């Protein structure tokens, strides 16, 4: 399946290569560079590139291209999903997945990659198992290792790989037993010029951080499970139980993991928590344009909207902008033509606004289209879909764990057309 992996940084250097079968010359990446040049932007590099003898499948994350070399037919998503899993694992191991981090920990990276694939077929991709096999580097451990000469490689063999619950480490022990769940919802929406919603969907996830001793068996129930009609689960969730009782029952992996993700589709009515009033106009005759936007709360269920950030890609003709915000800070980059305004919290009594003028390149005619406005925001303690956790119970262990549930609503791809 997966023959080789090349890691390529933003400046086009191959800084790591790994082969699981015979060695494939790195000159195969030339085809990739060619495609990269053609695509102009990193985002537009096609994920699948055919070459005379190989196929290159790539993902682009953290400004690094992960290019897998394939020799024969394979479901492309198989490879892509695996590459993303590799990136996730690195992130899990090193905190951040960057070129520097990978170069610094090249041996661990190599050992991890070695365990993840055998002959190009995934072997151990559960982070719990990998961490048993190869311990993630920590500062303390590095110090200890240098002094005592011990290693990162686990001297215990990973029994988890052989167990019925392959996602959980065995022999977990904590002094404080705690289980936290974050219900995070993202609103993807397109709002048209007049402020009416063209499409809006909610993409929700429940992320968990479970630090419990032993082999706990958890159940999580919801006040309104009906909302969740389109879900995907972590393999630990017992599907039958969900089908019959609408209860999440599972033996959790140790540490952080995504318990489930769900999708409330465009067909349902989605509350839009903010609105944007805008007045952006270019005039044909003069080289000056007017720019004015105001952001305000709409259906927030009484919660404050925070972390508001407005970005907008201005047309090429805009040379500069002279703006005054009522709050927050704004930057306009005259090269990329990107305007960003860090608003902060919205105070319903005094709505934040950004007003001013734009200087246009003289002689060019006015742009056809007004720029779209991208919005980011956060609302704490609110799941906009109305999802509510009813209770969390633990079986199988005697102690009393500390439990916590947090809700948050965020903007996903939230666009306002002007």
């Amino acid at each position, binding site marked *: 399946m997966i023959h080789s992996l090349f890691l390529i940084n933003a400046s086009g*250097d191959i800084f790591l290569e790994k082969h699981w079968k015979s060695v494939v*010359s790195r000159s195969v990446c030339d085809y990739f560079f060619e495609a990269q040049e053609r695509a102009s932007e990193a*985002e537009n590099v096609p994920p699948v590139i055919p070459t005379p003898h190989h*196929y290159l499948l790539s993902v682009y994350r953290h400004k690094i291209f992960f290019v897998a070399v394939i020799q024969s037919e394979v479901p492309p998503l198989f490879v*892509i999903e695996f590459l993303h899993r590799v990136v996730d694992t690195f992130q899990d191991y090193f905190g951040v997945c960057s070129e520097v981090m990978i170069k610094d920990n090249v041996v661990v990276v190599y050992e991890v990659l070695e365990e993840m694939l055998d002959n190009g077929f995934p072997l151990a*991709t559960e982070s719990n198992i990998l961490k048993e096999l190869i311990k993630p580097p920590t500062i303390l451990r590095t110090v200890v290792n240098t002094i005592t000469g011990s290693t990162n490689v686990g001297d215990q*063999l990973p029994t988890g790989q*052989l167990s019925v619950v392959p996602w959980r480490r065995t022999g977990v022990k904590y002094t404080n037993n705690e289980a936290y769940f974050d219900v995070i919802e993202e609103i993807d929406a397109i709002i048209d010029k007049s402020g009416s919603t063209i499409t809006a969907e909610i993409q929700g996830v429940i992320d968990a951080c479970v630090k419990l001793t032993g082999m706990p068996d958890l159940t999580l129930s919801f006040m309104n499970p009906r909302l969740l009609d389109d879900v*995907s689960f972590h393999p630990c969730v017992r599907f039958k139980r969900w089908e019959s009782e609408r209860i999440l029952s599972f033996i959790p992996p140790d540490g952080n993991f995504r318990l489930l993700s769900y*999708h409330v589709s465009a067909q349902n009515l989605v509350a839009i928590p903010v609105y944007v009033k805008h007045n952006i106009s270019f005039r044909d005759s003069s080289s000056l344009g007017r720019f004015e936007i105001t952001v305000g709360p709409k259906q927030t269920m009484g919660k404050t909207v925070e972390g508001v950030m407005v970005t907008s890609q201005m047309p090429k003709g805009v040379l500069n902008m002279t703006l005054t915000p009522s709050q927050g800070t704004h930057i306009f980059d005259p090269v990329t033509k990107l305007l960003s305004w860090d608003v902060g919290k919205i105070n319903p009594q005094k709505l934040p606004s950004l007003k001013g003028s734009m200087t246009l390149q003289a002689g060019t005619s006015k742009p056809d289209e007004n720029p779209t406005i991208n919005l980011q925001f956060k609302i704490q303690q609110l799941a906009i879909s109305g999802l509510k956790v009813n209770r969390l119970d633990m079986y199988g262990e005697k102690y009393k764990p500390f439990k916590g549930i947090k809700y948050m609503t965020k903007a996903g791809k939230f666009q306002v057309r002007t």
Partner: protein
Amino acid sequence: MSSEASIYNRPSVLDCFRSSGNSWFQKRNLKQMLESSKDSAKLDAMKRIVGMIAKGKNASELFPAVVKNVASKNIEIKKLVYVYLMRYAEEQQDLALLSISTFQRALKDPNQLIRASALRVLSSIRVPIIVPIMMLAIKEASSDLSPYVRKNAAHAIQKLYSLDPEQKEMLIEVIEKLLKDRSTLVAGSVVMAFEEVCPDRIDLIHKNYRKLCNLLVDVEEWGQVVIIHMLTRYARTQFVSPWKVSFENNFYESDEEQKEKDRKVKNIYTMDPDHRLLLRNTKPLLQSRNAAVVMAVAQLYWHLAPKSEASIVSKSLVRLLHSNREVQYIVLQNIATMSIQRKGMFEPYLKSFYVRSTDPTMIKTLKLEILTNLANEANISTLLREFQTYVKSQDKQFAAATIQAIGRCATNITEVTDTCLNGLVCLLSNRDEIVVAESVVVIKKLLQTQPAHHGEIIKHMAKLLDNITVPVARASILWLIGEYCERVPKIAPDVLRKTAKSFTTEDDLVKLQILNLGAKLYLTNSKQTKLLTQYVLNLGKYDQSYDIRDRTRFIRQLIVPNEKSGALSKYAKKIFLAQKPAPLLESPFKDRDHFQLGTLSHTLNSRATGYLELSNWPEVAPDPSVRNVDVAESVQQTWILKILIIESGSENEKEGKEESSSDESSGSSSSSEESSDSESDSKESTANKTSRAAAERWICTFMVTTQVSVPTETHELLHRMSGKGLAAHYHFSRQPGIFGDHMVSVQVTVTNTTDQKIENIHIKEKKLPPGMRVHEFNPIECLEPAESITVSMGIDFCDSTQMASFQLCTKDDHFNVNIQPPVGELLLPVTMSEKDFKKEQGMLTGMNETSATIAVAPQNSTRLVIIERVVKAANLGVVPSGQDNIHRFAAKTVHSGSLMLVTVELKESSTAQLVINTEKTVIGSVLLRELKPVLSQG
């Protein structure tokens, strides 16, 4: 190769700068470090070497120094040496052979994980000489008791096959064997090997089809993808099409005939239960977090499910659109293909495909493609409004694609053709050239479909010619004017005049169209344009491009009559101004549907190497009985598995405690599932089991309490003659502790052989020796004639073989019965390591030991048979043994929990020493007596 190698070995400029000159020293230094006696120095050296490999630098010179460390005690050094070996063994074959013996030794290690990793490395060393060794190792590993080792054997099959395809036949045998495996761990890997080595041997799948379907939910996600793809192919060869039901209505057929046909079809088609099984068992996987699994199920439903059911996958596919850019790209491509054939599937999700300005261009164009496919009379007005926004997009490439999409909508939906055309004409005044050019091209195509009354538009476009520079657009305008020159008689010659002036500077594409325009005008309006055309033809004659010179010559011969030109020139007008069919505006995804969805070939729209064609449905289904599984076979399989459960608790020396036997729950649950109910979710059952036993099983040592074998032998409790028609039998179910710790559980089957109901069957008047207790079964209220019922009771025999006597009562009668336990049933199996066993044995010597020498029948001398027979005779647990000729079993007595250790040591000349160590000497000697005939009888 040499050039490749040189590129490969070329260090980057920066590295050169850093290490030029001293690389030789560096390598010598590394060699010294590797040869040092300190592990830390070795480790440091290995780390640096791996760093070099990662950067793609050549480290092959160090091979001899590295390979010496293959047997290192330090795990990390060992692992890094493995990494090095796998990378360079191919290049240094002779030296690589030095390491082989280490792996061969490790293949025999009692620890399954070490065996597995040895096999993994051994098979990854691509040295042809060791093919026979690999073959042997794979064969052995494929019958290993640990499923993890077997999984690695499945991986090794592919490696060996790519190293030496000659081994195919032998490897297929191994695959056949592993396909029968019941472990979820093995399933994915062996199917992968099957796909790689012998994808055409569908016959190997038959017997395993149902098992694979049932195991699927519990297989790890990557295996699921591979299995689903394989099963899709399999199903297409074995089942008849479920689609035939929805045949086309033949308009001319009378209603009667129609009904007749309906009935026929309905009568013929019923879905094969195995086909249904596959669909049912894959459906829950749509909920997987892994996009590849969801896509695999989606394509399975697309290719196999009745059309009405396929739509359940749309929701899940749309959900995937919130994933990363690459996943979106692949999923959108597949949706694009699906949406051409079955619009209805994705119509409800139209809005999910609306384009955002932040999407990358490739995603935008794919979404646009899908939107266009989904356009119909009902939603076209909304869509066109949406398209208007896109046309204004700052991403001009995307705007151009939108214009094409509008063109396609306009041709497909006649109601909106005019609206679209007007919209496009407005775009002609757009400031952006690419937009205008694209509009021209699309308008040209649209006009061709209905040229009747669009003279105005053509005039408008002729005016544009002065400003547009994009060649395709200019060529399109010229073609339009030439084609419809009779509608614009005044403008056309003028256009030719203008373009003749600029001929030399035009693009080839435009030049050809100028020539065409000239020719057409010459034929229709030769008075005005004769000279102009000849001028253009003269220019073309001396053009630099072959094509244009050829075309010029060709046109001249056709239109300018001279003595050489034949009869053809008479028809010149017909040739040039023939009615041309309008171009069909089609989706670029139209022709992709012959590839299986979700494959690389589908993404690339060309056959990838190794693509396996999806066959057409067979007309008549092949014999479905080939999938029936022999019951006896499966029982035996289960049995072996159960042995293995006990076996695999091999020892982890460092920790001195036992490892979990992985396969225990998954193996047993899947087999129970197989036999009882295919619907039952085995994940559920395993999980429940785990949670029940969580405390004891997961925290402390992993006690394996599974039953090894339940003797089927039943004993008579009450004969039907003496029981006046009521018969009762019992057997020992060997379930531990249902009724309390000290109870032996007994299952009693009561049968009514009379022709009347027997009511209120219960136990009374127990006459028990002191200390003995009985847990009664709940009274049976009523037993119908010829019916039988099985109930469980518990008896505490106080570790003695005294019988328990009681009365079995019915409503009107009572019968004295008694149960005497065989000594083997007074035990409960205990799992322990060999070390613990020896320790315990050491403490139970002297008078606690009884022994006997027995003759062993020759057929009983293999390990499996001995274990089978002993375990059947007495409820003992198997202790893993390092020696082949010694077999150890351990148990504790039910009541007092004293240990009972049994050792069978095979000697020469088919005798064996049977030793029993226990505090309970009475039971010990009875057990010894009972075990003797077990092994000596044939």
